[in-house]
């Protein structure tokens, strides 16, 4: 099916902005996102094509706004829930636990 990913020939995205000496990742979490996604792929629950389809199935408003590895993580989360490996509640509470906290005496 077509969708937001089907970009060939679309107009309006502006010029390409190649970056000199581009780093492999632009934040540490991007490396973890890549590694976690590949590690989960190795569980063998879904084929690569289904992983791709999960990314392509994101709502266009999300797909166009998300960075590349954010698209990967959102798709991975949806697959983990679909295959019963992680519940939506666990994802939500996990995220809740990571909210900013006040510095404590144990922070160096």
């Amino acid at each position: 099916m077509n969708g937001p990913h089907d970009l060939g020939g679309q107009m309006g995205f502006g010029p390409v902005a190649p970056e000199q000496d581009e780093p492999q990742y632009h934040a540490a979490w991007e490396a973890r996102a890549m590694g976690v996604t590949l590690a989960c792929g190795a569980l063998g629950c879904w084929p690569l094509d289904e992983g791709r389809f999960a990314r392509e199935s994101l709502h266009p408003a999300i797909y166009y706004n998300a960075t590349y590895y954010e698209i990967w993580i959102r798709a991975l989360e949806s697959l983990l829930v679909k295959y019963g490996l992680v519940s939506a509640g666990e994802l939500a509470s996990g995220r809740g636990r990571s909210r900013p906290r006040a510095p404590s005496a144990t922070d160096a």
Partner: protein
Amino acid sequence: MPHDHHDHEHDNHLDPMDARVRALETILTRKGLIDPAAVDAIIDTYAHKVGPQNGAAVVARAWTDPDFADWLRRDATAAIAAMGFTGRQGEHMQAVFNTPDQHNVIVCTLCSCYPWTVLGLPPVWYKSPAYRSRVVLEPRAVLAEFGLELPTDTKVRVWDSTAELRYLVVPMRPEGTEGMGPEALAALVTRESMVGTGLPRVPA
């Protein structure tokens, strides 16, 4: 993890994606679904073992070994595998050779299919909507944004990669490199020259 020189570990500075990925990795680790050491190993593989240096070695060998070049043209998957570059996202490869008449460029309009085994992880611009949408529409204008202006009588051919078949551009060997060995030649072969958005360096 290695190589995160720009980042720091203070929880109170986490951006939402950082928090989201940390939470996910924690949940998966607690459930025994993944091992953080395996994630480290995957990251390390793509930092040090799989990258454009592999593709540069393939191109340099093609420039210096006509039999290998012929094999690469006929069966890139086997020729590249014979150099030890096998694995994920490189299962089926086609090498497209630049000539004075035709310059080749690769893209994945649908996502980010890219020959990982020879080029490593794709750069951000390759995955960007701007590149994916427009390089098939007005390739010369896009190449100009990379500083690449081709002669007007050189045809530009754009190859749209798929999940099954990935392409490697074999650029033309630069003039003035006669007598150089494969190792010195490989140092001239840039990632962009193997995607088609650039040309190899010329010897100093």
